[in-house]
């Protein structure tokens, strides 16, 4: 496998809950935003050690999936846990999906 194949990424962010209970989804493929180092953003997130969070009234629930680098990763986070590397990744996906 060549480097370019292993650096093909498909990332989705699904936001549910919130007062409105409206579902919002953002998807991005690495081809949509080749200038972004998606591997760096994805690897910075602690996928295997997401803290279990008590559900909180009317807060958003975030489901994040990243396919690429020969691995599938998936995490569900409460809104209060969407900080640091998670927040960076989600913000980049939302921005790239908007363009």
């Amino acid at each position: 496998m060549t480097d370019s194949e292993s650096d093909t990424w498909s990332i989705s962010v699904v936001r549910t809950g919130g007062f409105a209970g409206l579902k919002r989804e953002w998807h991005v493929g690495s081809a949509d935003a080749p200038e972004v180092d998606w591997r760096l953003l994805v690897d910075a997130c602690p996928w295997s050690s997401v803290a279990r969070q008590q559900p909180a009234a009317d807060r958003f629930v975030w489901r994040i999936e990243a396919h690429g680098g020969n691995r599938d990763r998936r995490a569900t986070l409460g809104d209060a846990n969407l900080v640091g590397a998670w927040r960076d990744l989600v913000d980049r996906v939302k921005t790239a999906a908007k363009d």
Partner: protein
Amino acid sequence: MVHGIVPPYLLARIAELDDERFAVAAQAARRALRYDEPRRAARLNFSLDASNNLVVELTDGPNRTISDAQNGETLPGEVVRREGDEPTGDPAADEAYDGLGATFALFSEVYGRNSIDGAGLPLDATVHYGVEYDNAFWDGERMVFGDGDGEIFGRFTASLTVIGHELAHGVTQYTAGLEYQGQSGALNESVSDVFGSLVEQHSLAQSASEASWVIGASLFTDEVEGTALRSLKAPGTAYDDDVLGKDPQPAHLDDYVETDDDNGGVHINSGIPNRAFYLVATALGGNAWERAGQVWYDTINLDLAPDTTFAQFAAATVRAATSRYGGASAEVDAVRTGWSTVGVETGDDDGLRV
């Protein structure tokens, strides 16, 4: 220093009154001044009785503090308005202040509950949370309101039902403690929608037949095809929009949505108990906060299990209606019919921990 509407020197004067006519006020003032009790706000009502005597009554009052996060995500933010302060001129801060007052009034005047915890807990809210933040929530201690993105949502303080909804989450936390997951989570949401709607109805003095029975009217911008976020009267009909899709709420147990999203669809399946409440309130007529609201308020004050199901909650409302109005009452009939219309049978198992 006690922050309240009644200044301490006036409380002290009232406390020392040695006059039969003011015995209640004097006792209340002495209680309010006692420093070993939690500090609480109070309201003085002055009126004249039939013999033209001045009657002074001391009643519970809210203790509100509104903060401004200035579009950051650090709570609580900077305090912009305390209890008794003049309006700030910022619509979000002033709507939050007034909305908390209207919510306090419903619980205090109608159900005799002094604030969220029943013991005068201060009401704290933060406005302007985050950037274009499309949400309002209760974080266990305070209500937090975003400004909305300006394209789909405007500011979340614009609807009194939203403010009542958030404060009611606090009341549920201190009473029924319904777990925010699955059916008990949908009940938790429904209780907030019910009391959010009742706050608005009580504030506007609307009867059950006059009320809009919607949650979050005026939150959507003009771009959105929809009147509100949810309808208690007709769940599933609040909006139908090209971008947002259609309101996904079911109105009957047969259409209960099983999902992992949104803590098990708590904002979706709340449509079922919401409609049950609407049916009870309209069957009884008059003001919804009086009989239907009283039954629901009594129910959340029962010792419900955290994982209470729809059927158990329904049975608990029958128990509450029976103990307040009697087993052969119109209230009990309305409650049973309301639940069976949405497909929830009211059996004997109310899951109470007694």
